[in-house]
């Protein structure tokens, strides 16, 4: 079958009202699930999976992809409105999104999140269609040593999100790295800091840590210091994100989208690191550098572009190699197999029409995301109008339910509260939470890839300079460190 035949057959497959319907359903379900704290995009996809069994393969897969994309965007809504990332990938969005909401610019932040998400989604889908083959071979050349150098470079983000004091940022990051070591050690299988408790053997649940760290300190602070204005409603703000806003942030959005595409194509990284990396790069290059973390709209744009840029790109290893890039795509691979499709290079030969149908569906999904997202933002606006004295307890209830739902254990809820107090303590001491989270996310990746590489080489460190990819990341790390030091010296000089 020629390309045109396949494309025509694919179009025939996707050009039904059902495919639009299921895709739209998926996006809607995803946005709502993503907007509920604790219900991550992963859970939403897993819950939607059984419903696809009875559907035609193309509808089922489009439904799941819709849930995935919707979920990643939906997570930004509570991240901005109530400082609770709905899904881990949107934690970077809270950094500037929430201060904007506090200032009464929630509408503008949400609008920018939507624009950035949809542009990134479109870029990501186009990259999937145009660059899949090339990016897939790039992804396959990422062994543990390359992975290690990439993660090492990513750790330099910490300087960008540390706020006023780099030392406090480093303390936070080190604590995050430390807490991430709880649980089974991957390489030897020994228990670390588990004190014989089977719950601790699995490590601290990511969602519990995330919610505890971001949402709870806000609530605890409110309990201790109920301010007058908290009884009044904040305003969504009459201002919407304008075209001028988008134009100003466009560079960051496009940069973030491509960071998302690259990290998404490499299996095993996921949306959260991409969002933080995109955020840090935007900050490094912005004239408003010092305003980041205080409600800079470009920060919201960069974070959302980074995490949505991952979505289409995770399908690159899935479709072209048959390997899952993250947990969500692992579930989607399951859906392919249930429908008798085996993702991988042969899919393009045996089911080429199906692949083209998927591509068309994906492009459509970017526009559906925009339409449904706009409606969702308007529907969730009432959250911004609720006085904090009502909002805080409701958020607390949602957090408890969401955390419990991840693993159905009360232990995770306890972890969430413990992390909440830790987060409050950090807030009082003015230690930033974002570096902590980055340490917690990247720590296991850093450690595992380091030890896997050492196993591969029999203990020789030469493996970390084995090819151009590793050299590139070493160089980038050195450059980032140089810039951090240069800026520190500059600020010292300014003080004296």
């Amino acid at each position: 079958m020629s390309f045109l035949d396949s494309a025509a057959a694919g179009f025939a497959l996707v050009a039904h009202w059902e495919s639009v319907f299921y895709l739209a359903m998926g996006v809607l379900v995803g946005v709502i699930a993503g907007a509920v704290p604790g219900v991550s995009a992963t859970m939403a996809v897993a819950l939607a999976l059984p419903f696809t069994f009875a559907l035609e393969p193309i509808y089922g897969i489009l439904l799941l992809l819709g849930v995935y994309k919707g979920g990643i965007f939906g997570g930004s809504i509570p991240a901005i409105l109530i400082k609770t990332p709905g899904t881990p990938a949107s934690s970077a969005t809270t950094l500037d999104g929430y201060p904007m909401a506090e200032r009464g610019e929630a509408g503008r932040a949400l609008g920018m999140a939507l624009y950035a998400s949809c542009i990134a989604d479109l870029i990501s889908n186009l990259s999937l269609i145009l660059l899949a083959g090339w990016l897939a071979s790039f992804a396959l050349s990422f062994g543990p040593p390359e992975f290690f150098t990439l993660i090492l470079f990513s750790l330099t983000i910490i300087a960008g999100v540390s706020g006023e004091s780099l030392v406090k940022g480093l303390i936070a990051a080190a604590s995050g790295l430390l807490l991430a070591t709880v649980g089974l050690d991957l390489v030897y299988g020994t228990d670390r800091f588990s004190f014989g408790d089977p719950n601790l053997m699995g490590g601290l649940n990511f969602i519990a840590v995330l919610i505890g760290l971001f949402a709870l300190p806000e609530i605890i602070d409110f309990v201790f210091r109920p301010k007058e204005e908290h009884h009044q409603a904040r305003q969504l703000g009459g201002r919407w994100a304008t075209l001028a806003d988008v134009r100003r942030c466009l560079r960051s959005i496009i940069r973030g989208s491509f960071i998302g595409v690259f990290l998404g194509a490499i299996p095993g990284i996921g949306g959260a690191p991409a969002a933080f990396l995109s955020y840090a790069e935007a900050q490094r290059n912005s004239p408003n550098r010092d305003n980041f973390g205080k409600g800079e709209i470009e920060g919201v744009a960069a974070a959302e572009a980074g995490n949505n840029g991952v979505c289409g790109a995770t399908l690159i290893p899935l479709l072209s190699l048959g390997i899952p890039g993250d947990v969500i795509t692992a579930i989607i691979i399951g859906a392919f197999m249930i429908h008798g499709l085996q993702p991988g290079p042969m899919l393009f030969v045996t089911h080429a029409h199906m692949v083209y149908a998927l591509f068309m569906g994906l492009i459509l999904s970017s526009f559906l995301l925009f339409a449904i997202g706009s409606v969702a933002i308007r529907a969730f606006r009432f959250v911004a109008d609720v006085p904090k004295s009502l909002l805080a307890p409701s958020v607390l209830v949602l957090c408890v339910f969401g955390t419990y739902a991840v693993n159905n254990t009360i232990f995770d809820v306890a972890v969430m509260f413990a992390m909440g107090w830790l987060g409050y303590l950090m807030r009082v001491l003015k230690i930033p939470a974002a570096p902590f989270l980055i340490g917690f996310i990247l720590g296991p990746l850093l450690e595992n890839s380091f030890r896997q590489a050492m196993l591969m080489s029999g203990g020789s460190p030469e493996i970390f300079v084995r090819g151009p990819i590793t050299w590139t990341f070493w160089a980038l790390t050195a450059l980032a460190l140089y810039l951090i030091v240069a800026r520190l010296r500059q600020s010292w000089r300014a003080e004296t």
Partner: protein
Amino acid sequence: MSKITLGLALTSAIALSSPALAAYPEQPIQLIIAYGAGGATDLSGRALATALGPKVPQPILPVNRTGAGGATGTASVAAAEPDGYTMVVARVGSHTVNPAMKDTLPYTLDDFDFVAVYEINPVACAVAADSDIDSMETLAARVNENPGTVSYSSSGVGSLLHIAGAMALRSFGVENPVEAAIHLPMAGGGEAATAVLAGTADFICTNSSALSSFVANGQLRPLMVTTAEPVAGFDAPTSADLGKPELESLVGWSGIAGPAGLPDEVIETWRGWLEEAVQDPGFQETMDRFGSIVDLKSPEDSVAFINEQYRIFRELVDELDMRVE
């Protein structure tokens, strides 16, 4: 209060205090899945729960409780009340490999009553399609000639893949595979297969279902399957063909278990349900697509099968000193 209402209250109090199992199940049943959504155990457990739906008077709720390579969820079932309302999808990793390898595990096989094994997953060993290793013999020879250069990937310490690589090498004449070959633990089954695809690891031994799409796509080349019968889609000799029938104990499986002390009635009721569920065409079709063989063993056979596999793994672990403390 009239005498009638008092009488009614008394009878209902008696009815409540009499063994609740009189009409098991009276409430929804939690089916714990100790592995993550989308994995082999999850799909198998959920397919079973779906097939059981119309046959069981109460809902069966699959619950993913993940962590520590299946230990967290499994331990929570071991500690639950043996009333039949908390059951677990028992799996080769959580119920034979892990107990055989880890002394620090918070449960043992004795903490469970097994209803049945209902599914068998053949194990296959494979290399990258462009690898110059063309048979298990070549592989073993390569390991013996250059100790410490050949690696295999797994989904972690105490996983089926971990023990399978060592067991396969050993039966093909590698005296001490733990020393001679490199075990490369990855963060999951998908990553383990990717490692072989990317050339990070040299070979992998895992459930054929995890490899089938890579084999069909010509990305990985199978060297051996460990069942007595050939596996569809795998152009490779069986372990019996290669003169190693002892490797047939190296198979994946799923079953249903509950905390030790389950009433007989619960076990029998579940037996009946399973017998119906395995006849369900939808269930069979799903299992088929994942390359699993639906094989409902009798309770005695199930327990014997699990104990035998545990014994073999335990011996291997002792001989090779693979114990994790």
